[in-house]
């Protein structure tokens, strides 16, 4: 939007950045229409400081004033922050050990993803057999075995995926993305049985058509990953 870069950040300003993020956090928490007074109360910031931060965030369009000018709503621009805020998820070394064992047992790609707030986030992709398209996996989960598990959990999966899951306790993708290749995914569950993520295999299609050997490795791996990643 601007013709030149906005104020540049210097090393002395990390506190200001922190304050700005807490203000955005407060607006998200209070909901659209929160007033400056409510926000400064919520944060326990001095009023003048809160007003200055709010006006700066409005100038940069991270916040929008409601038409009566008294309230604030998050600007569409905060989505840009999401990419920055969502740091790379990392597995613990114990979990990585489990994944390494599975990779040795299965000649093919083994990937681990988490389901974070309704979206697929890749935690550990197989370096030897890379995921076909990580971005697309996040955007169009219905096309991937890993994503279909998320949809099963959300109750919005298509009939074939639901049927697969009912029969196998896993979801599959059979040559739909790349002919000759298929995928199988089993859920990683927390103590209450909710899906927190999935571990998936990708490889030659016949091993997904007849998944018993793959499942015999993935299921114990998923079971041991559960307590390690939650």
């Amino acid at each position: 939007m601007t013709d030149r870069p906005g104020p540049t950040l210097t090393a002395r300003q990390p506190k200001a950045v922190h304050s700005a993020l807490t203000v955005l956090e407060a607006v998200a928490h209070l909901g659209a229409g929160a007033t400056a007074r409510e926000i400064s109360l919520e944060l326990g910031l001095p009023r003048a400081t809160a007003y200055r931060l709010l006006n700066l965030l409005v100038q940069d369009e991270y916040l929008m004033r409601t038409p009566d000018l008294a309230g604030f709503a998050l600007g569409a621009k905060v989505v840009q922050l999401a990419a920055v805020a969502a740091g790379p998820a990392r597995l613990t070394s114990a979990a990585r050990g489990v994944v390494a064992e599975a990779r040795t047992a299965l000649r093919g790609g083994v990937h681990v993803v988490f389901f974070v707030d309704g979206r697929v986030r890749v935690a550990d992709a197989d370096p030897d057999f890379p995921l076909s398209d990580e971005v697309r996996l996040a955007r169009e989960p219905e096309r991937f075995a890993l994503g279909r598990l998320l949809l099963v959990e959300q109750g919005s999966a298509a009939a074939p995926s639901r049927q697969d899951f009912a029969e196998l306790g896993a979801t599959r993708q059979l040559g739909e993305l790349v002919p000759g290749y298929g995928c199988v995914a089993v859920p990683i569950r927390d103590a209450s049985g909710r899906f927190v993520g999935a571990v998936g295999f990708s490889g030659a299609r016949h091993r997904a058509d007849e998944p018993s050997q793959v499942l015999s490795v993935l299921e114990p791996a998923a079971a041991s990953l559960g307590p390690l990643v939650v």
Partner: protein
Amino acid sequence: MTALERAIARPDPVHDFGARSPLYGLDRRSVGFFDVLAQSVAAVAPAAAATTVVLLVAGVSPSATVLSIVLAAVLSLLVARTISQFARRLAAAGSTYTYTARGLGRGAGLAAGAAILVGYGAIAMFALLGGAYYVTFLLESAWPAMGGPGTLAAVLAAEAAFVAVVLVRGIRISSRIALVVEAISVALIAVLLVVLLARIGPIDPAQVLGLGAFDPAALAAGSVIALTAFVGFESASTLGVEARAPLRNVPRAIVWTVILSGGLYLLAAVAQVAGFDAIGAPLESSASPINQLAAAYGLGGWGVVADIGIAASFLACAIGSTTALTRVLFTMGRDGVLAAPAGRAHPRFGTPIGAVALAFPVISGVPFLLLMSGFDIRDAMHVTIAVGGAGYIVAYILVCVAAPVFLRRIGEVTLGATVEASVSAAVLTGALVAFFAVDAASGSVAVWVVLAVAALAVVGVLLRLRGGTPSLERIGSYDEPVASQVLGGVARRAGSGGD
């Protein structure tokens, strides 16, 4: 999992915003900071004012010329900061009219609107007259046969036509021309002043500041005259729709205009006071101090350069004032204060052509009538600048009163902002009274013209208020964010509030 992450991943629908701004049709978000700054600087015309205002101030406050200018700069800065309270929060095209309406409601909003229209309109006329005067003066000095009222009228017509074309063609062109012309004129004057100062040699600060003979009454009168050299600094606030990142760039441009003009005036004042001290002549009785100083210090040829700079500055001032004038008229058309055609925008150029058509007959016609009815051009300039100055100051007073009320209404009032606004309003009111006391004492007719214009404005506002309150419901409209700019924004249906 934080509230922010949740909001980004699954935004709640927000229904407070419309699908388009009430001020749609203008060339939205098209000019950057320097063009916005040029708008305000052009409306102030510091190059022209730097050469004339020092002489005027010296006339009423010979002992404290520099101090008067410093005081006026401080007051202007306070007003600029108060106006920025609005400019930081809403992107408007109506300047003090929209701001005052947001703080004090319809009646005061209309009054501030009438005042600022008088200010922009009269200063546009003043700049056209001033440009014609200086261009004719330059032509005459090159070709002596070129003088006379015929040339004056021809130059006036050419200027008005140029400004009209530039205004219709678009804000990018008009603001860029203002930027280039203003940068050249300010640079010419600044270089001349610095060279002069270098030739004058060391100066005595106590002498220049006039600390020896302190006269508070003269200081006040001098400050009021100096204040008229600053008015127009707020006009960046008419580009709220057209500026990029307006909530950052507009307030910044307003404050920087005061700082830049103040710096130039200070330079001019110091050079002239010290220069006339050094040559042992009284500044206040000089006819053309810059030219006289330039000649005295062996820079005779530079006088012409200064005159070219001044003529250019007047032209930029005409563009700037008319740009501001048309944006306010445009907003009034959209607000329903004026008939809908006033709010018409050019479909391709994104300029307020309805307002241009409304404004041009007046701002080019009145100077013609003044000259045709036998007014001396300098008298005509004096009357127009007095009327314009009064319009600006009235609008500033209203907007300064409105600021704390507005801030309280949106729950963001602070002690500092309230004090700044209140001090500004009080001092400006005193300044307005003093301005006319000074002017009337000098035997000028300006005060009567101002009173007549004010009476007309009051009648106009009262008639409009009686004309029907429902039609004034939209007063104070500004460039609201649209639903697509809001996380989870869902455009509200037309008719469910606002535009």
